[in-house]
Protein backbone atom coordinates (compact mmCIF):
# COMPACT_ATOMS: atom_id res chain seq x y z
CA UNK A 1 0.00 0.00 0.00
CA UNK A 2 2.68 2.44 1.06
CA UNK A 3 4.91 1.42 -1.78
CA UNK A 4 2.04 1.78 -4.23
CA UNK A 5 1.25 5.26 -2.91
CA UNK A 6 4.87 6.32 -3.30
CA UNK A 7 5.04 4.99 -6.85
CA UNK A 8 1.80 6.71 -7.82
CA UNK A 9 3.01 9.91 -6.20
CA UNK A 10 6.10 9.74 -8.38
CA UNK A 11 3.84 9.66 -11.45
CA UNK A 12 2.26 13.00 -10.54
CA UNK A 13 5.26 15.18 -11.45
CA UNK A 14 5.77 13.08 -14.58
CA UNK A 15 2.26 13.78 -15.86
CA UNK A 16 2.39 17.41 -14.75
CA UNK A 17 5.70 17.98 -16.56
CA UNK A 18 4.47 16.25 -19.74
CA UNK A 19 1.31 18.34 -19.82
CA UNK A 20 3.18 21.57 -19.14
CA UNK A 21 5.73 20.88 -21.86
CA UNK A 22 3.02 20.02 -24.40
CA UNK A 23 1.04 23.16 -23.50
CA UNK A 24 4.09 25.37 -23.62
CA UNK A 25 5.13 24.32 -27.10
CA UNK A 26 1.59 23.98 -28.49
CA UNK A 27 0.97 27.63 -27.66
CA UNK A 28 4.09 28.61 -29.61
CA UNK A 29 3.46 26.52 -32.72
CA UNK A 30 4.24 28.52 -35.88
CA UNK A 31 0.55 28.69 -36.85
CA UNK A 32 -0.74 29.52 -33.36
CA UNK A 33 -2.11 32.97 -32.55
CA UNK A 34 0.79 35.35 -31.98
CA UNK A 35 0.11 37.47 -28.86
CA UNK A 36 1.86 40.49 -30.40
CA UNK A 37 -0.92 40.80 -33.00
CA UNK A 38 -3.14 42.07 -30.19
CA UNK A 39 -0.85 44.94 -29.31
CA UNK A 40 0.00 46.26 -32.79
CA UNK A 41 -1.94 48.34 -35.28
CA UNK A 42 -1.29 49.64 -38.82
CA UNK A 43 1.03 52.38 -37.52
CA UNK A 44 3.26 50.09 -35.46
CA UNK A 45 6.74 49.98 -36.93
CA UNK A 46 8.79 46.82 -37.14
CA UNK A 47 11.06 48.17 -34.39
CA UNK A 48 8.14 48.83 -32.09
CA UNK A 49 6.83 45.33 -32.73
CA UNK A 50 10.23 43.93 -31.91
CA UNK A 51 10.22 45.95 -28.68
CA UNK A 52 6.82 44.52 -27.74
CA UNK A 53 8.08 41.01 -28.37
CA UNK A 54 11.08 41.72 -26.22
CA UNK A 55 8.92 43.10 -23.44
CA UNK A 56 6.67 40.04 -23.48
CA UNK A 57 9.75 37.85 -23.56
CA UNK A 58 8.77 35.94 -26.68
CA UNK A 59 11.63 37.15 -28.85
CA UNK A 60 14.06 34.51 -27.63
CA UNK A 61 14.34 31.00 -29.07
CA UNK A 62 11.56 28.72 -27.86
CA UNK A 63 13.79 26.47 -25.82
CA UNK A 64 15.39 29.38 -23.98
CA UNK A 65 11.92 30.72 -23.17
CA UNK A 66 11.01 27.33 -21.75
CA UNK A 67 14.08 27.17 -19.53
CA UNK A 68 13.37 30.72 -18.31
CA UNK A 69 9.76 29.88 -17.51
CA UNK A 70 10.62 26.67 -15.67
CA UNK A 71 13.30 28.35 -13.54
CA UNK A 72 10.94 31.24 -12.74
CA UNK A 73 8.08 28.98 -11.75
CA UNK A 74 10.40 26.82 -9.67
CA UNK A 75 11.41 29.94 -7.77
CA UNK A 76 7.76 30.84 -7.26
CA UNK A 77 7.75 33.68 -9.79
CA UNK A 78 4.83 33.19 -12.17
CA UNK A 79 5.59 36.27 -14.24
CA UNK A 80 3.21 38.99 -15.33
CA UNK A 81 0.12 38.70 -17.51
CA UNK A 82 0.52 39.96 -21.07
CA UNK A 83 -2.77 41.81 -20.96
CA UNK A 84 -2.43 43.94 -17.85
CA UNK A 85 1.20 43.49 -16.84
CA UNK A 86 0.03 42.52 -13.35
CA UNK A 87 1.69 39.62 -11.53
CA UNK A 88 -0.16 36.35 -12.27
CA UNK A 89 -0.34 34.93 -8.74
CA UNK A 90 -2.47 37.66 -7.04
CA UNK A 91 -4.93 37.47 -9.95
CA UNK A 92 -5.34 33.75 -9.34
CA UNK A 93 -5.32 34.05 -5.56
CA UNK A 94 -8.24 36.44 -5.78
CA UNK A 95 -10.31 34.00 -7.83
CA UNK A 96 -9.65 30.47 -6.66
CA UNK A 97 -11.87 30.57 -3.53
CA UNK A 98 -14.84 31.33 -5.82
CA UNK A 99 -14.12 28.22 -7.88
CA UNK A 100 -13.56 26.08 -4.83
CA UNK A 101 -16.94 27.11 -3.45
CA UNK A 102 -18.77 26.40 -6.72
CA UNK A 103 -16.99 23.06 -7.01
CA UNK A 104 -17.68 21.94 -3.44
CA UNK A 105 -21.34 22.96 -3.54
CA UNK A 106 -22.18 21.46 -6.93
CA UNK A 107 -20.28 18.21 -6.41
CA UNK A 108 -21.81 18.04 -2.93
CA UNK A 109 -25.33 18.37 -4.33
CA UNK A 110 -24.57 15.88 -7.05
CA UNK A 111 -23.32 13.31 -4.53
CA UNK A 112 -26.03 13.96 -1.96
CA UNK A 113 -28.98 13.70 -4.34
CA UNK A 114 -27.42 11.17 -6.69
CA UNK A 115 -26.52 8.65 -4.01
CA UNK A 116 -29.64 9.03 -1.88
CA UNK A 117 -32.04 8.82 -4.83
CA UNK A 118 -29.98 5.95 -6.22
CA UNK A 119 -30.45 4.00 -2.99
CA UNK A 120 -34.17 4.81 -2.89
CA UNK A 121 -34.79 3.70 -6.47
CA UNK A 122 -32.75 0.53 -6.02
CA UNK A 123 -34.67 -0.45 -2.88
CA UNK A 124 -37.98 0.36 -4.52
CA UNK A 125 -37.07 -1.22 -7.86
CA UNK A 126 -39.95 -1.32 -10.39
CA UNK A 127 -42.36 0.74 -8.32
CA UNK A 128 -43.93 4.08 -9.21
CA UNK A 129 -41.25 5.93 -7.19
CA UNK A 130 -38.54 4.15 -9.16
CA UNK A 131 -40.09 5.06 -12.51
CA UNK A 132 -40.63 8.70 -11.61
CA UNK A 133 -37.06 9.17 -10.42
CA UNK A 134 -35.69 7.38 -13.48
CA UNK A 135 -37.69 9.59 -15.84
CA UNK A 136 -36.31 12.63 -14.01
CA UNK A 137 -32.80 11.22 -14.30
CA UNK A 138 -33.07 10.77 -18.08
CA UNK A 139 -34.26 14.37 -18.42
CA UNK A 140 -31.57 15.58 -16.03
CA UNK A 141 -28.92 13.98 -18.18
CA UNK A 142 -30.32 15.45 -21.39
CA UNK A 143 -30.82 19.09 -20.51
CA UNK A 144 -27.61 21.12 -20.91
CA UNK A 145 -26.49 22.71 -17.64
CA UNK A 146 -26.34 26.20 -19.10
CA UNK A 147 -29.98 25.87 -20.19
CA UNK A 148 -30.96 24.96 -16.62
CA UNK A 149 -29.08 27.99 -15.31
CA UNK A 150 -30.77 30.25 -17.85
CA UNK A 151 -34.15 28.86 -16.83
CA UNK A 152 -33.23 29.61 -13.23
CA UNK A 153 -32.93 33.27 -14.18
CA UNK A 154 -35.84 33.41 -16.60
CA UNK A 155 -38.62 31.31 -15.03
CA UNK A 156 -38.82 32.85 -11.52
CA UNK A 157 -39.00 36.29 -13.07
CA UNK A 158 -41.97 35.23 -15.23
CA UNK A 159 -43.79 33.27 -12.52
CA UNK A 160 -43.13 35.21 -9.34
CA UNK A 161 -41.57 38.38 -10.67
CA UNK A 162 -38.43 37.48 -8.73
CA UNK A 163 -34.94 37.39 -10.17
CA UNK A 164 -32.16 35.58 -8.36
CA UNK A 165 -29.14 37.77 -7.57
CA UNK A 166 -26.54 38.03 -10.34
CA UNK A 167 -22.93 39.09 -9.86
CA UNK A 168 -21.50 40.80 -6.81
CA UNK A 169 -19.36 38.12 -5.23
CA UNK A 170 -18.96 38.39 -1.45
CA UNK A 171 -16.74 36.02 0.51
CA UNK A 172 -18.66 33.40 2.47
CA UNK A 173 -16.75 34.36 5.62
CA UNK A 174 -17.76 37.99 5.40
CA UNK A 175 -21.43 37.64 4.61
CA UNK A 176 -22.62 34.01 4.41
CA UNK A 177 -26.24 34.95 3.69
CA UNK A 178 -25.55 37.08 0.59
CA UNK A 179 -22.95 34.61 -0.56
CA UNK A 180 -25.24 31.59 -0.32
CA UNK A 181 -28.14 33.44 -1.88
CA UNK A 182 -25.94 33.97 -4.91
CA UNK A 183 -24.33 30.53 -5.08
CA UNK A 184 -26.81 27.99 -3.69
CA UNK A 185 -29.49 28.02 -6.44
CA UNK A 186 -27.13 27.81 -9.43
CA UNK A 187 -24.84 25.19 -7.88
CA UNK A 188 -27.90 23.11 -7.02
CA UNK A 189 -28.88 23.13 -10.69
CA UNK A 190 -25.29 22.58 -11.83
CA UNK A 191 -25.29 19.47 -9.65
CA UNK A 192 -28.46 18.08 -11.26
CA UNK A 193 -26.80 16.70 -14.38
CA UNK A 194 -24.20 14.98 -12.21
CA UNK A 195 -26.84 13.78 -9.75
CA UNK A 196 -28.77 12.12 -12.59
CA UNK A 197 -25.74 10.15 -13.72
CA UNK A 198 -24.83 9.36 -10.12
CA UNK A 199 -28.33 8.11 -9.38
CA UNK A 200 -28.33 5.75 -12.33
CA UNK A 201 -24.90 4.38 -11.45
CA UNK A 202 -25.77 3.94 -7.76
CA UNK A 203 -29.01 2.19 -8.67
CA UNK A 204 -27.49 -0.28 -11.12
CA UNK A 205 -24.47 -1.04 -8.89
CA UNK A 206 -26.69 -1.54 -5.84
CA UNK A 207 -29.01 -3.87 -7.73
CA UNK A 208 -26.02 -5.99 -8.62
CA UNK A 209 -24.83 -6.00 -4.99
CA UNK A 210 -28.33 -6.97 -3.79
CA UNK A 211 -27.99 -10.26 -5.64
CA UNK A 212 -24.92 -11.30 -3.63
CA UNK A 213 -25.07 -14.06 -1.03
CA UNK A 214 -23.80 -11.88 1.81
CA UNK A 215 -26.87 -9.68 1.45
CA UNK A 216 -29.10 -12.72 2.04
CA UNK A 217 -26.91 -13.72 4.99
CA UNK A 218 -27.17 -10.25 6.49
CA UNK A 219 -30.93 -10.39 6.22
CA UNK A 220 -31.09 -13.98 7.49
CA UNK A 221 -29.17 -13.16 10.65
CA UNK A 222 -31.87 -10.62 11.42
CA UNK A 223 -30.21 -7.32 10.58
CA UNK A 224 -32.60 -4.43 10.10
CA UNK A 225 -33.42 -3.67 6.47
CA UNK A 226 -31.96 -0.19 6.61
CA UNK A 227 -28.70 -1.46 8.01
CA UNK A 228 -28.45 -4.18 5.35
CA UNK A 229 -28.89 -1.63 2.57
CA UNK A 230 -26.48 0.96 3.97
CA UNK A 231 -23.74 -1.05 5.71
CA UNK A 232 -23.65 -4.08 3.42
CA UNK A 233 -25.18 -2.79 0.20
CA UNK A 234 -23.95 0.78 -0.23
CA UNK A 235 -20.54 0.07 1.23
CA UNK A 236 -19.93 -2.52 -1.47
CA UNK A 237 -21.26 -0.24 -4.20
CA UNK A 238 -19.08 2.68 -3.16
CA UNK A 239 -16.05 2.13 -5.41
CA UNK A 240 -17.69 3.02 -8.74
CA UNK A 241 -19.54 5.85 -7.01
CA UNK A 242 -16.34 7.43 -5.71
CA UNK A 243 -14.73 7.00 -9.13
CA UNK A 244 -17.61 8.87 -10.77
CA UNK A 245 -17.45 11.61 -8.12
CA UNK A 246 -13.80 12.14 -9.03
CA UNK A 247 -14.64 12.38 -12.72
CA UNK A 248 -17.32 14.94 -11.89
CA UNK A 249 -14.86 17.09 -9.98
CA UNK A 250 -12.65 17.11 -13.07
CA UNK A 251 -15.59 17.96 -15.32
CA UNK A 252 -16.81 20.72 -13.03
CA UNK A 253 -13.37 22.18 -12.54
CA UNK A 254 -14.03 24.64 -15.28
CA UNK A 255 -17.67 23.69 -15.69
CA UNK A 256 -18.09 26.52 -13.25
CA UNK A 257 -17.16 28.73 -16.21
CA UNK A 258 -20.75 28.36 -17.44
CA UNK A 259 -22.05 29.48 -14.06
CA UNK A 260 -19.58 32.37 -13.94
CA UNK A 261 -20.64 33.48 -17.41
CA UNK A 262 -24.39 33.45 -16.73
CA UNK A 263 -24.19 34.90 -13.24
CA UNK A 264 -21.51 37.49 -14.08
CA UNK A 265 -19.01 36.16 -11.56
CA UNK A 266 -15.34 36.84 -12.13
CA UNK A 267 -13.78 33.48 -11.31
CA UNK A 268 -10.90 31.38 -12.56
CA UNK A 269 -12.94 30.02 -15.49
CA UNK A 270 -13.56 33.48 -16.93
CA UNK A 271 -9.93 34.39 -16.34
CA UNK A 272 -8.76 31.30 -18.18
CA UNK A 273 -11.21 31.89 -21.03
CA UNK A 274 -10.12 35.49 -21.61
CA UNK A 275 -6.47 34.54 -21.30
CA UNK A 276 -6.71 31.87 -23.98
CA UNK A 277 -8.59 34.17 -26.33
CA UNK A 278 -5.92 36.83 -25.96
CA UNK A 279 -3.03 34.30 -26.02
CA UNK A 280 -1.90 35.36 -22.57
CA UNK A 281 0.82 32.70 -22.32
CA UNK A 282 1.93 33.07 -18.67
CA UNK A 283 -1.63 32.73 -17.40
CA UNK A 284 -2.60 29.81 -19.66
CA UNK A 285 0.61 27.94 -18.86
CA UNK A 286 0.23 28.36 -15.14
CA UNK A 287 -3.47 27.51 -15.04
CA UNK A 288 -2.86 24.30 -16.99
CA UNK A 289 -0.07 23.41 -14.57
CA UNK A 290 -2.30 24.24 -11.59
CA UNK A 291 -5.19 22.14 -12.92
CA UNK A 292 -2.84 19.27 -13.69
CA UNK A 293 -1.43 19.19 -10.16
CA UNK A 294 -4.83 19.30 -8.48
CA UNK A 295 -6.49 16.76 -10.77
CA UNK A 296 -3.56 14.32 -10.49
CA UNK A 297 -3.47 14.55 -6.68
CA UNK A 298 -7.23 14.09 -6.52
CA UNK A 299 -7.10 11.01 -8.74
CA UNK A 300 -4.36 9.62 -6.53
CA UNK A 301 -6.46 10.23 -3.43
CA UNK A 302 -9.39 8.44 -5.04
CA UNK A 303 -7.24 5.44 -5.99
CA UNK A 304 -5.95 5.18 -2.44
CA UNK A 305 -9.43 5.54 -0.98
CA UNK A 306 -10.40 2.22 -2.60
CA UNK A 307 -8.41 0.41 0.11
CA UNK A 308 -10.29 2.29 2.83
CA UNK A 309 -13.65 1.48 1.27
CA UNK A 310 -12.90 -2.16 0.60
CA UNK A 311 -10.09 -3.78 2.62
CA UNK A 312 -9.93 -6.61 0.07
CA UNK A 313 -8.40 -4.22 -2.47
CA UNK A 314 -4.69 -4.90 -2.74
CA UNK A 315 -2.30 -2.62 -4.54
CA UNK A 316 0.36 -4.48 -6.44
Amino acid sequence: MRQYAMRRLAYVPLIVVTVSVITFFTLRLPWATDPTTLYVNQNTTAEQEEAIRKELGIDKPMFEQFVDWVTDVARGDLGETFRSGQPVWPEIQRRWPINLEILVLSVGFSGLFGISFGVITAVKQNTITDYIFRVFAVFGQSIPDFFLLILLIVLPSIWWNYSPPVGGHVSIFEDPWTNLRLYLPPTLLLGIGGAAGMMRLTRSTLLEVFRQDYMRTARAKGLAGRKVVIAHGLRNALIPIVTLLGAQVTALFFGSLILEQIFSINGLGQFFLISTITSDFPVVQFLVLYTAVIVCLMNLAIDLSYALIDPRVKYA
Partner: protein
Amino acid sequence: MATQTQTAAVDFDWAYVPTRPGWLRRMGRLARQHPTGVFGLAVLILFVVCGLFGERLAPYPPDELSVGVPLEGSSVEHPFGVNQLGQDIFSRILAGARISFIISFFAVFLGAGMGSFLGILGGYFGRWLDYVVQRSGEAFAAFPGLVLFLTLRTAFGPGLKTFIIAIAIGALFGGNRVLRGQTILEKHQVYVEAARAIGCSEWRIFIRHVVPNVLPLVVVIMSGALGAAILAESALSFLGLGPEEPSWGRDMSGSNLSLARQGYWHVVVWPGVAISLVVLGANLLGDSLRDIWDPRLRK
Protein backbone atom coordinates in the same frame (compact mmCIF):
# COMPACT_ATOMS: atom_id res chain seq x y z
CA MET B 1 -61.35 -46.27 -43.99
CA ALA B 2 -61.79 -45.16 -40.40
CA THR B 3 -58.29 -46.27 -39.50
CA GLN B 4 -56.98 -44.28 -42.42
CA THR B 5 -58.47 -40.97 -41.19
CA GLN B 6 -57.15 -41.74 -37.74
CA THR B 7 -53.58 -42.10 -38.99
CA ALA B 8 -54.01 -38.87 -40.95
CA ALA B 9 -55.03 -37.09 -37.75
CA VAL B 10 -51.94 -38.10 -35.82
CA ASP B 11 -49.73 -37.62 -38.84
CA PHE B 12 -47.08 -35.17 -37.79
CA ASP B 13 -44.77 -33.42 -40.17
CA TRP B 14 -41.43 -33.99 -38.50
CA ALA B 15 -39.63 -32.02 -41.16
CA TYR B 16 -41.60 -28.88 -40.35
CA VAL B 17 -39.46 -26.11 -38.94
CA PRO B 18 -41.30 -23.00 -37.81
CA THR B 19 -40.12 -20.14 -39.97
CA ARG B 20 -38.60 -17.16 -38.25
CA PRO B 21 -40.92 -14.17 -38.55
CA GLY B 22 -39.83 -11.68 -41.22
CA TRP B 23 -37.49 -8.89 -40.17
CA LEU B 24 -40.26 -6.33 -40.44
CA ARG B 25 -42.38 -8.24 -37.95
CA ARG B 26 -39.41 -8.75 -35.63
CA MET B 27 -38.65 -5.03 -35.79
CA GLY B 28 -42.29 -4.27 -35.01
CA ARG B 29 -42.18 -6.52 -31.95
CA LEU B 30 -38.99 -4.86 -30.76
CA ALA B 31 -40.51 -1.43 -31.31
CA ARG B 32 -43.55 -2.32 -29.20
CA GLN B 33 -41.29 -3.47 -26.38
CA HIS B 34 -39.21 -0.29 -26.45
CA PRO B 35 -41.46 2.69 -27.19
CA THR B 36 -38.96 5.15 -25.73
CA GLY B 37 -36.29 3.84 -28.09
CA VAL B 38 -38.63 4.40 -31.04
CA PHE B 39 -39.22 7.95 -29.84
CA GLY B 40 -35.47 8.50 -29.60
CA LEU B 41 -34.93 7.11 -33.08
CA ALA B 42 -37.68 9.35 -34.50
CA VAL B 43 -36.13 12.42 -32.88
CA LEU B 44 -32.72 11.52 -34.26
CA ILE B 45 -34.11 10.97 -37.77
CA LEU B 46 -35.77 14.38 -37.57
CA PHE B 47 -32.45 15.82 -36.37
CA VAL B 48 -30.53 14.32 -39.29
CA VAL B 49 -33.13 15.62 -41.78
CA CYS B 50 -32.86 19.12 -40.26
CA GLY B 51 -29.08 18.86 -40.23
CA LEU B 52 -29.00 18.03 -43.94
CA PHE B 53 -31.84 20.16 -45.31
CA GLY B 54 -32.69 22.51 -42.42
CA GLU B 55 -32.05 25.71 -44.29
CA ARG B 56 -34.23 24.64 -47.22
CA LEU B 57 -37.06 23.48 -44.95
CA ALA B 58 -37.08 26.76 -43.04
CA PRO B 59 -40.07 29.00 -43.82
CA TYR B 60 -37.82 32.11 -43.79
CA PRO B 61 -34.10 32.55 -44.55
CA PRO B 62 -32.52 32.14 -41.10
CA ASP B 63 -30.27 35.19 -41.37
CA GLU B 64 -32.79 37.52 -43.01
CA LEU B 65 -33.57 40.51 -40.83
CA SER B 66 -36.99 41.95 -40.15
CA VAL B 67 -39.17 39.10 -41.36
CA GLY B 68 -41.40 39.84 -38.37
CA VAL B 69 -41.95 42.34 -35.58
CA PRO B 70 -38.82 42.23 -33.36
CA LEU B 71 -39.26 40.33 -30.09
CA GLU B 72 -42.82 39.30 -30.95
CA GLY B 73 -43.95 36.10 -29.23
CA SER B 74 -45.44 33.00 -30.84
CA SER B 75 -47.86 33.51 -33.70
CA VAL B 76 -49.17 31.51 -36.66
CA GLU B 77 -46.50 32.88 -39.02
CA HIS B 78 -43.72 32.59 -36.42
CA PRO B 79 -44.46 29.57 -34.19
CA PHE B 80 -41.48 30.22 -31.89
CA GLY B 81 -41.59 33.99 -32.16
CA VAL B 82 -39.13 36.52 -33.53
CA ASN B 83 -35.81 37.67 -32.06
CA GLN B 84 -34.43 41.16 -31.54
CA LEU B 85 -33.22 41.47 -35.13
CA GLY B 86 -36.55 40.37 -36.51
CA GLN B 87 -35.29 36.93 -37.49
CA ASP B 88 -37.67 33.98 -37.35
CA ILE B 89 -36.61 31.76 -34.43
CA PHE B 90 -38.15 28.59 -35.86
CA SER B 91 -36.13 28.98 -39.07
CA ARG B 92 -32.97 29.61 -37.07
CA ILE B 93 -33.53 26.43 -35.08
CA LEU B 94 -33.96 24.40 -38.27
CA ALA B 95 -30.80 25.94 -39.73
CA GLY B 96 -28.88 25.65 -36.45
CA ALA B 97 -29.24 21.88 -36.57
CA ARG B 98 -26.57 21.84 -39.27
CA ILE B 99 -23.62 22.71 -37.06
CA SER B 100 -24.70 20.29 -34.34
CA PHE B 101 -25.16 17.66 -37.02
CA ILE B 102 -21.69 18.17 -38.54
CA ILE B 103 -19.98 18.08 -35.14
CA SER B 104 -21.89 15.05 -33.92
CA PHE B 105 -21.34 13.24 -37.23
CA PHE B 106 -17.58 13.51 -36.86
CA ALA B 107 -17.73 12.77 -33.14
CA VAL B 108 -19.76 9.61 -33.74
CA PHE B 109 -18.11 8.17 -36.82
CA LEU B 110 -14.58 9.50 -36.58
CA GLY B 111 -14.18 9.82 -32.80
CA ALA B 112 -16.32 7.07 -31.33
CA GLY B 113 -15.79 4.82 -34.38
CA MET B 114 -12.03 5.03 -34.25
CA GLY B 115 -12.01 4.86 -30.45
CA SER B 116 -14.11 1.70 -30.57
CA PHE B 117 -11.84 0.16 -33.17
CA LEU B 118 -8.72 0.93 -31.12
CA GLY B 119 -10.43 -0.40 -27.99
CA ILE B 120 -11.36 -3.71 -29.64
CA LEU B 121 -7.95 -4.04 -31.27
CA GLY B 122 -6.15 -3.24 -28.02
CA GLY B 123 -8.40 -5.52 -26.00
CA TYR B 124 -7.82 -8.47 -28.31
CA PHE B 125 -4.17 -8.13 -29.24
CA GLY B 126 -2.95 -6.22 -26.16
CA ARG B 127 0.73 -5.36 -26.08
CA TRP B 128 2.08 -1.92 -27.05
CA LEU B 129 -1.01 -0.66 -28.90
CA ASP B 130 -3.19 -1.34 -25.89
CA TYR B 131 -0.63 0.27 -23.62
CA VAL B 132 -0.35 3.44 -25.69
CA VAL B 133 -4.12 3.84 -26.08
CA GLN B 134 -4.90 3.16 -22.43
CA ARG B 135 -2.20 5.46 -21.04
CA SER B 136 -3.17 8.33 -23.34
CA GLY B 137 -6.80 7.75 -22.37
CA GLU B 138 -5.86 8.07 -18.71
CA ALA B 139 -3.88 11.24 -19.33
CA PHE B 140 -6.83 12.61 -21.28
CA ALA B 141 -9.34 11.71 -18.57
CA ALA B 142 -7.21 13.54 -16.02
CA PHE B 143 -7.87 16.87 -17.74
CA PRO B 144 -10.94 19.00 -17.80
CA GLY B 145 -12.23 18.95 -21.39
CA LEU B 146 -12.50 22.70 -21.51
CA VAL B 147 -8.83 23.18 -20.67
CA LEU B 148 -7.91 20.88 -23.55
CA PHE B 149 -10.27 22.65 -25.93
CA LEU B 150 -9.10 26.14 -25.02
CA THR B 151 -5.46 25.14 -25.35
CA LEU B 152 -6.17 23.61 -28.77
CA ARG B 153 -8.05 26.74 -29.71
CA THR B 154 -5.13 28.97 -28.80
CA ALA B 155 -2.88 26.76 -30.89
CA PHE B 156 -5.02 26.15 -33.97
CA GLY B 157 -7.26 29.19 -33.90
CA PRO B 158 -11.04 29.34 -33.73
CA GLY B 159 -13.11 27.69 -36.42
CA LEU B 160 -14.87 24.52 -37.30
CA LYS B 161 -11.72 22.42 -37.68
CA THR B 162 -10.50 22.93 -34.09
CA PHE B 163 -14.01 22.31 -32.92
CA ILE B 164 -14.35 19.01 -34.75
CA ILE B 165 -10.91 17.80 -33.64
CA ALA B 166 -11.50 18.64 -29.97
CA ILE B 167 -14.92 17.04 -29.74
CA ALA B 168 -13.85 13.99 -31.75
CA ILE B 169 -10.91 13.43 -29.38
CA GLY B 170 -13.34 13.51 -26.48
CA ALA B 171 -15.53 10.92 -28.18
CA LEU B 172 -12.48 8.80 -29.04
CA PHE B 173 -11.56 8.14 -25.44
CA GLY B 174 -15.15 8.09 -24.23
CA GLY B 175 -16.18 4.57 -25.14
CA ASN B 176 -12.82 3.04 -25.77
CA ARG B 177 -12.39 1.53 -22.28
CA VAL B 178 -15.78 -0.15 -22.17
CA LEU B 179 -15.14 -1.87 -25.49
CA ARG B 180 -11.68 -2.95 -24.42
CA GLY B 181 -13.15 -4.59 -21.32
CA GLN B 182 -15.88 -6.32 -23.30
CA THR B 183 -13.39 -7.58 -25.88
CA ILE B 184 -11.19 -9.04 -23.16
CA LEU B 185 -14.25 -10.86 -21.78
CA GLU B 186 -15.17 -12.18 -25.24
CA LYS B 187 -11.68 -13.35 -26.05
CA HIS B 188 -11.77 -15.88 -23.19
CA GLN B 189 -15.09 -17.37 -24.31
CA VAL B 190 -15.31 -20.98 -25.39
CA TYR B 191 -16.29 -20.15 -28.96
CA VAL B 192 -12.97 -18.37 -29.47
CA GLU B 193 -11.13 -21.42 -28.20
CA ALA B 194 -13.23 -23.61 -30.51
CA ALA B 195 -12.39 -21.43 -33.47
CA ARG B 196 -8.71 -21.62 -32.59
CA ALA B 197 -8.97 -25.41 -32.18
CA ILE B 198 -10.27 -25.89 -35.72
CA GLY B 199 -7.35 -23.86 -36.99
CA CYS B 200 -8.64 -20.33 -37.58
CA SER B 201 -5.93 -17.72 -37.85
CA GLU B 202 -5.83 -15.00 -35.19
CA TRP B 203 -7.05 -12.38 -37.67
CA ARG B 204 -9.93 -14.57 -38.76
CA ILE B 205 -10.99 -15.15 -35.15
CA PHE B 206 -10.75 -11.42 -34.59
CA ILE B 207 -12.74 -10.33 -37.65
CA ARG B 208 -15.28 -13.15 -37.93
CA HIS B 209 -15.85 -14.09 -34.29
CA VAL B 210 -14.85 -11.41 -31.81
CA VAL B 211 -15.76 -8.22 -33.70
CA PRO B 212 -19.35 -9.24 -34.55
CA ASN B 213 -19.92 -10.08 -30.89
CA VAL B 214 -18.89 -6.69 -29.57
CA LEU B 215 -20.35 -4.69 -32.47
CA PRO B 216 -23.72 -4.05 -30.77
CA LEU B 217 -21.89 -2.29 -27.97
CA VAL B 218 -20.26 0.01 -30.54
CA VAL B 219 -23.71 1.26 -31.59
CA VAL B 220 -24.62 1.89 -27.94
CA ILE B 221 -21.41 3.85 -27.45
CA MET B 222 -22.01 5.82 -30.63
CA SER B 223 -25.42 6.96 -29.45
CA GLY B 224 -23.85 8.04 -26.15
CA ALA B 225 -21.17 9.96 -28.07
CA LEU B 226 -23.89 11.67 -30.10
CA GLY B 227 -25.56 13.12 -27.01
CA ALA B 228 -22.25 14.11 -25.42
CA ALA B 229 -21.04 15.80 -28.62
CA ILE B 230 -24.20 17.88 -28.94
CA LEU B 231 -23.98 18.93 -25.29
CA ALA B 232 -20.32 19.89 -25.72
CA GLU B 233 -20.96 21.75 -28.98
CA SER B 234 -23.84 23.76 -27.57
CA ALA B 235 -21.97 24.62 -24.36
CA LEU B 236 -18.93 25.85 -26.29
CA SER B 237 -21.08 27.81 -28.75
CA PHE B 238 -22.90 29.28 -25.79
CA LEU B 239 -19.58 30.51 -24.40
CA GLY B 240 -18.96 32.19 -27.74
CA LEU B 241 -16.18 29.81 -28.74
CA GLY B 242 -18.03 28.17 -31.62
CA PRO B 243 -17.90 28.84 -35.36
CA GLU B 244 -19.70 31.83 -36.81
CA GLU B 245 -22.82 30.04 -37.98
CA PRO B 246 -26.35 29.85 -36.65
CA SER B 247 -26.14 27.47 -33.72
CA TRP B 248 -28.51 26.62 -30.91
CA GLY B 249 -25.97 27.34 -28.22
CA ARG B 250 -24.91 30.65 -29.74
CA ASP B 251 -28.51 31.85 -30.06
CA MET B 252 -28.88 31.48 -26.30
CA SER B 253 -25.91 33.67 -25.39
CA GLY B 254 -24.89 37.31 -25.48
CA SER B 255 -27.61 39.84 -26.18
CA ASN B 256 -30.26 37.14 -26.37
CA LEU B 257 -29.41 36.13 -22.81
CA SER B 258 -29.79 39.66 -21.53
CA LEU B 259 -33.11 39.94 -23.40
CA ALA B 260 -34.26 36.79 -21.64
CA ARG B 261 -33.40 38.41 -18.32
CA GLN B 262 -35.76 41.24 -19.29
CA GLY B 263 -38.60 38.79 -19.85
CA TYR B 264 -38.33 37.88 -23.55
CA TRP B 265 -37.90 34.23 -22.63
CA HIS B 266 -38.92 32.80 -26.00
CA VAL B 267 -35.66 34.04 -27.53
CA VAL B 268 -33.54 31.56 -25.55
CA VAL B 269 -35.97 28.87 -24.45
CA TRP B 270 -36.74 27.31 -27.86
CA PRO B 271 -33.13 26.67 -28.88
CA GLY B 272 -32.60 25.16 -25.42
CA VAL B 273 -35.59 22.90 -25.90
CA ALA B 274 -34.18 21.82 -29.28
CA ILE B 275 -30.84 20.82 -27.74
CA SER B 276 -32.50 18.99 -24.85
CA LEU B 277 -34.83 17.12 -27.19
CA VAL B 278 -32.06 15.82 -29.45
CA VAL B 279 -29.87 14.78 -26.50
CA LEU B 280 -32.89 13.14 -24.87
CA GLY B 281 -33.52 11.24 -28.11
CA ALA B 282 -29.92 10.02 -28.25
CA ASN B 283 -29.99 8.97 -24.59
CA LEU B 284 -33.31 7.12 -24.90
CA LEU B 285 -32.19 5.32 -28.05
CA GLY B 286 -28.91 4.38 -26.37
CA ASP B 287 -30.71 3.05 -23.29
CA SER B 288 -33.06 0.93 -25.38
CA LEU B 289 -30.23 -0.46 -27.49
CA ARG B 290 -28.35 -1.35 -24.32
CA ASP B 291 -31.44 -3.12 -22.96
CA ILE B 292 -31.72 -5.09 -26.19
CA TRP B 293 -28.07 -5.99 -26.57
CA ASP B 294 -26.33 -5.95 -23.20
CA PRO B 295 -25.73 -9.60 -22.36
CA ARG B 296 -25.65 -8.84 -18.64
CA LEU B 297 -29.22 -7.58 -18.74
CA ARG B 298 -30.45 -10.47 -20.85
CA LYS B 299 -30.85 -12.83 -17.87
